[in-house]
């Protein structure tokens, strides 16, 4: 447990009148730091939580107070609801920001927060339950008239999964209903693979989300993964902040490079996606920040899932719209109105994000752990780095391998690519293997530069040894 004082007293009167007094950040690493920054700029005090493995992390040092909530393994620390709620109570926090992953889409957690008089910075629990649960979300979207991929509801057993795969026709995708970030997701190419894929997907989902339930959908071969960012307040006002193209994905379906706006997207398709996102949010009475993920194949668009939280890749949207999405989340949760309409929002320029992970791209992006002997991040015009690492930091084996997000902004897509290329070459991380060289390889391909890629792009580069 540690305390420090950072909040500017000048804000105190305004804080009491408008926003929260103290926010517990129920996350770690760069997103915890990102939320801490937003709170500090709003004059809101912060409480970090951390595991024993993260005791010296930057997010712990930057918060006003910090409480250890358990040992390194995620289920005993960052998913330890009693200790997290108890921390919020003993530190007198009036809100909890869950970040992404961990408890961010856990309706029960949001409900427990409400039971203890703590505001959950996200949608209402029943909306998380409806939209955060991927299988239910698809059913709700169908009801709202939004196109979805052919698939099932939650699967009761591996036998049901086998029957469903036979009916839908392989290839199919097994997905965690509580999932995100590619965790608990498996492609099933042949019927005889169902059992193995089901077992490993449900185990991974259980470990990651404390919810091992799966559903199945038809695998749309080589679509684009395009998602729409939305903001909605508690008074029925909903806006979109354009789309992001997240089609550069590893074979595990984890995103590696994202950009906004999506290149070469026909205006008609773009408008259809934006309209569907708004329609869906209004249908479910959504509030706070959220993302609707779609698969786009030719002229066809399919709703895939909704993430009822801030996304890893939110900075690219912030760069082109000039809006701080985390501050907006806090404002909305505090009961404020959006204060602007769709026509006030204009996208300018282009932004690209590269995820710098502790992974060995020459070994199928196998996660790495270790101590970082030297870390140097890029700078200069148009570059933003969201990270919680520095020289001497450790990369524990318990958590996601992402160490940093390098974001490049340019007036045009070509300018953003050139800037990203320059920034990645400036970046030095010694101590573990990273995805920097893989990102540079991808940026250098004609397929990426022309904006004509889809989710099969990176696996094809890996198969051809262009990456790795």
């Amino acid at each position, binding site marked *: *447990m540690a305390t420090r004082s950072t909040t500017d007293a000048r804000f105190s009167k305004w804080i009491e009148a408008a926003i929260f007094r103290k926010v517990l950040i129920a996350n770690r690493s760069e997103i915890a730091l990102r939320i801490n920054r937003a709170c500090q700029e709003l004059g809101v005090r912060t409480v970090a939580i951390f595991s024993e493995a993260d005791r010296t992390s930057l997010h712990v040092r930057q918060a006003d107070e910090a409480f250890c909530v358990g040992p390194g393994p995620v289920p005993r620390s960052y998913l330890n609801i009693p200790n997290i709620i*108890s921390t919020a109570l003993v530190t007198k926090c009036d809100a909890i920001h869950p970040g992404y992953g961990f408890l961010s889409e856990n309706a029960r957690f949001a409900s427990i927060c409400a039971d203890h008089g703590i505001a959950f910075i996200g949608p209402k629990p029943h909306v998380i339950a409806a939209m955060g649960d991927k299988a239910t979300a698809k059913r709700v979207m169908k009801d709202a008239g939004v196109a979805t991929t052919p698939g099932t509801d939650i699967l009761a057993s591996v036998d049901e999964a086998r029957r469903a795969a036979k009916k839908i026709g392989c290839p199919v995708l097994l997905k965690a209903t509580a999932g995100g970030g590619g965790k608990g997701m498996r492609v099933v190419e042949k019927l005889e693979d169902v059992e193995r894929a089901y077992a490993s997907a449900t185990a991974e989902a259980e470990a990651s989300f404390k919810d091992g339930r799966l559903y199945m959908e038809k695998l749309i071969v080589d679509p684009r993964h395009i998602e729409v960012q939305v903001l909605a307040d508690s008074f029925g006002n909903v806006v979109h902040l354009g789309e992001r193209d997240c089609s550069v994905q590893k074979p595990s379906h984890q995103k590696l490079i994202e950009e906004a706006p999506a290149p070469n997207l026909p205006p008609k398709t773009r408008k259809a996606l934006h309209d569907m996102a708004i329609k869906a949010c209004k249908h479910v009475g959504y509030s706070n920040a959220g993302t609707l993920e779609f698969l786009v194949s030719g002229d066809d668009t399919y709703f895939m899932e909704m993430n009822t939280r801030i996304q890893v890749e939110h900075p690219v949207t912030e760069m082109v719209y000039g809006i701080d999405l985390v501050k907006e989340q806090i404002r909305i949760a505090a009961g404020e109105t959006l204060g602007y309409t769709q026509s006030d929002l204009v996208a300018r320029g282009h932004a690209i994000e590269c995820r710098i992970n502790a992974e060995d791209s020459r070994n199928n992006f196998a996660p790495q752990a270790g101590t970082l002997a030297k870390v140097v991040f890029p700078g200069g015009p148009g570059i933003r780095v969201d990270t919680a690492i520095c020289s001497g930091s450790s990369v524990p084996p318990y958590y996601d391998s992402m160490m940093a997000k390098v974001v490049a902004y340019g007036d045009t897509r070509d300018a953003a690519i050139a800037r990203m290329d320059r920034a990645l070459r400036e970046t030095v991380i010694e101590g573990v293997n990273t995805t920097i060289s893989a990102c540079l390889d991808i940026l250098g391909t004609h397929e990426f530069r022309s904006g004509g890629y889809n989710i099969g792009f990176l696996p094809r580069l890996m198969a051809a040894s262009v990456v790795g």
Partner: protein
Amino acid sequence: MSDAPPLNGSIAGRVRDLVETFVQTDLVRLRIERDGEEFEIRRPAAAGPQFLTQAETPAPVAAVNIETVRADLVGIFHFLRPSPIEGDVLDGDRELGYVEALGIRNPVRTHGPGRIVSILCADGDAVDYGRPLFEMDRGRHF
């Protein structure tokens, strides 16, 4: 069943008498056990040594095996009454206090015999996971 008169009834008067007697002595602790009921009076730790002469002061036991009793959850720490003091020698697994979390009292135990070397927390402290609360000497005498 014992024929001895119970300690309750005129208990307030009896406690007052005992305390008055206690403060006139050099005793640092008085403990009465009767029919399963216990009563104990102690002098504050800081005040204890002034009643002992140099010759009477027991030789310190060499600490050979110090273990830290830590909080295993987040909450507010409270001592059990009477509060343990540094130097207390405890037999068996004894409850020293509790961490109150979400309205539940979670006992903090010694997990075995030993002597309290240090008390590292105060009553009412907000404690997090792993916070050191007590140091126990588990030396060979225990």
